[in-house]
Structures are given as C-alpha cells and as structure tokens.
C-alpha cells in the first residue's frame, strides 16, 4: 500500500514507565489502586503494540 497514511511514526507515546503511568493517571484524575497496577501495565503494553501496528511500524 503506497497511499500516505495520516498516522505518525514517532508521535505520542503510550505511558509505560511507572513515572509516566503515574503522571498520565494524575493528569486525568484517576488514581491507580495497587491491585490494578500489574494488569494496567500489561494492558498498556498491549495498547503500545497496537499503536506500533497502527503506525505501520510492525511491517504491514
């Protein structure tokens, strides 16, 4: 597919580090209970993989 895509490699990033996650949570007023943290981190990893694929960084 050669049509230019409106997605942007190198655009905004999914928060992945503990500090980035805490900052994103604070920004939207959503405290993350300890019981949720590992599940949230796993889901953010999944979302990051979808961002890569959407941007065509996974080779499609």
């Amino acid at each position, binding site marked *: *597919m050669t*049509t230019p*895509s*409106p*997605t*942007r490699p190198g*655009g*905004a*990033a*999914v*928060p992945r580090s503990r500090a980035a*996650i805490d900052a*994103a*949570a604070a920004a*939207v*007023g*959503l*405290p*993350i*209970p300890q*019981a*949720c943290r590992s*599940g*949230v981190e*796993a*889901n*953010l990893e*999944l*979302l990051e993989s*979808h*961002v890569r*694929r*959407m*941007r*065509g960084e*996974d080779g*499609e």
Partner: protein
Amino acid sequence: MTLWHRRSACDIARAVRAREVTARAVLEGCLADIEARAAPLVAVTQLLAERARGEADAVDARIAAGEDPGPLAGVPYGVKDLFDVAGLPTTAGSRVYADAPPAPRDAKAVARLKAAGAVLVATLNMDEFAYGFATINAAYGTTRNPHDLARLAGGSSGGSAAVVAAGLMPLALGSDTNGSVRVPASLTGLYGLKPTHTALPLDGVFPFAESFDDVGPFTTSVEDMACVWAVLRGEPMVSETRADLRVARLGGRFRMNADPDQLAAMDAIAGEGASLEIPEIGRARSAAFLITAYEGGTLHRAALAKQALDYDPQVRDRLIAGALLPEAIVDEARAFRTDYIARVTAMLADTDVVLAPATPCTAPRIEDPRIEIDGEMRPARADLGIHTQAITFLGFPSLAVPLKRPGALPLGLQLIGKPGEENRLFALARQLEMRGFTGVSAPAHGAETCEEGTTQ
C-alpha cells in the same frame, strides 16, 4: 410442554395473528422451558415473568378486539443486560450498577419490539460493560455454549446468543461494538447483525465506545432477521430478492486465520467473483482497538476513580489503561479511519457483498479460553473479534450467517455490505439458505442437552 417458542419468530407471529395459539400459551411454554433448561447455560440474569404475562395478555386482548398486534405478535425475546427496561436498573453486566436507579422507560429498541407485539421475557448475560468477546463475567458467571457446555458462547452478547441457540426463544437483542453480536452468532450458529453504524436506535442502551456501538439482533432465520430489522428501523419490511448480486471474498489476513470450512464456503459462494484484499487490515483493527480502549476508558474514568475495585478485575484494568491513552494517539486513529473508509469505499465500488470469516475458529474451551492467531496462543476474550473489529472500523453493515454443518461445532461467515444496504445482505443470505450453504442446526444432542450440563 407446548413448544411454540422453539419455532421461528415469523411462524409464531403468524400463528398468534391467525388465532392458532395465544400469545399467553406461547409465553407459558417459553417460561417453562427456561425453568427446565436455562440454568446450565448461565445466560439468563433476570426472568421477567410478570411483565411478560402482561405483554402477552395485551397482545391476546388486541386480537380478541379484532386488532392486529403487529408483525412480532406474541414472539418471546430477551435483551442483553445493557438495554433499559422500565423499572429495572441497567447493570451493563456489572455489580457497579446493580443498585442503580430503575430505568424510567424502555430503550427505544425494546419499545419498538413491544409495539410490534413482541413479549420481553428475560435480561441476558454479557461481558461486563461489553468489554470482551467471551461472556466471562466475574459477577454473573461464564455463559456456556448450547452446542457444548464446556465451551464459550462468545461475547459480549453471549447470553443473548445462548438462549436463542438453545431454542429457549427465537429472538434476542444484543449490541455489537467490535463484534459482540457477530462473534457469539458464529460460535453458537445463529444469524447476527451488526447494522450500518447508528442505523438502529441506541436510546436507552448503555454505551461502550460510541464510535462503534450498535444494536444487533440474533435470530434463527433470515426471514426473522429481515422482519426484526424492519421493526427496529420503524419501517415496512422490504423483501429484496435480487439474484444478480456482485459477491467478492476477502483475502489476505482474513484467510490467514480461518477454518478450512469457512474458506471453502467463501470460495464456493463467490465463485468467479473477485478475491479482494483490503489493505492494511491489521492497522485498521489496531486503530479500532485503540479508539475503543480510549472511549471505553474515558466513559468510565469518573466511576473508576471512585470504585475501581468494584469492577471485574480484567475489565477494570483494560478500562484504566484505555483512560491513560494520550488523546493524540486516538486523534491519529480517527484520522486514519476517515482516510481508510474513503479508500475502502472506493475499492468496493463494483461489489455488493463481501465475504469474510466471522470468527477465526470454533468456540474455545472454557477451561483454556485461548485461540491461535498468527501461530500464537492469544486470549479469546480480546482476540475472537479479529475478523469483525476491522469491519466495525468501516462502519459497514455485516450479517453473520451460520455455515450449515450439522454435528460439528458452529462457525459463521460475515456478509459485509455498503452503508444502508442491509437488505442486500438479507437477499444474499436468503440465497445461501436456499442453496444449503447456511442454516441453523440444533445443538448436536438435541434441545435437551442443556439439562445434562455441567455446573457453573
């Protein structure tokens, strides 16, 4: 027991209107069958016997008065737990809303079915807040597949699919955001419709991701689907019977994760028709995944901040992650969508209906709810919609139809059309039904299977 409720919706309505049977008699048979066989399915969350008797008696009273109660006269049906039902809290499958104030009125779709003579019998199980393809619900249990109680029914409208597939009622309403009607329809062997986005009324339906949310029915025949479609649209039924539909099949990624029976059926149905490869389908699915995560997370952000621990843990963690997505990423996904729809619409200019698998496989086992995607084992809860989510992204209508394969676990195809052209999907589905490609098969061990089921 009288088994009128196991017939098609159109058959029941014809008989009730012709005074061959009363709506009340149809209902009592349905209620007795639910009492006898429904429990092992973990599909019914609330039986509405009193309301149903009132509605059935009202239908019979209209007939006695010489009036026509409508095209769904006396047809028992159920609704996914996210439709407003007057006087009940709308739980959306969650403990969080179990004590919510009762809905002041029925959802518009429910009101339209009632006005057509249908009788609401039960509310039905779902993935919490519709976030899943499995109907694994921490509060209300895992819904089981009537064709094999050890397997998932699919989701998120799994309760709706299970009661229809089990023959407990001929019609149920679900909702389809990314495949939540088409996936369970495929796994339980039913017809299930994702309409053109927003073509059916969403008033009184608990939202999930507004960019993609739609109401969708489950039925056991194309005739029933076309009738219910017309009722829900508030329009007269149109019976399109075109024989010259231009049919193509999707190739590429849609053929990489599919059952050989699905591929053989697609090839046989499309015949000399084109094999199309929609470009960048993986990118489209991922963009849909991101928009869904963001919209779902944002919708629940305030409630999560107050009572996150009351949510189903798996749903909760997905929603929180979605709420943390930067809006700039979602803006990218939405821009990609606009561009993508334009490109695919142009590509399909000479095609009426496109064929694709509805699910990549048959129903997974509950004890190991994973499926193989691209050679890797993935969670069914997130990935059963691999073939439906990309179609959702386009906003096009898609009708899941059951391949005719008695004795085997059900599997479905999607018939995908252009916006507003649902009647062409019904026309092709009628042809496929007549040619023997598709049709509903009763659970292999008969309708009594559910009585022999395992426990929750």
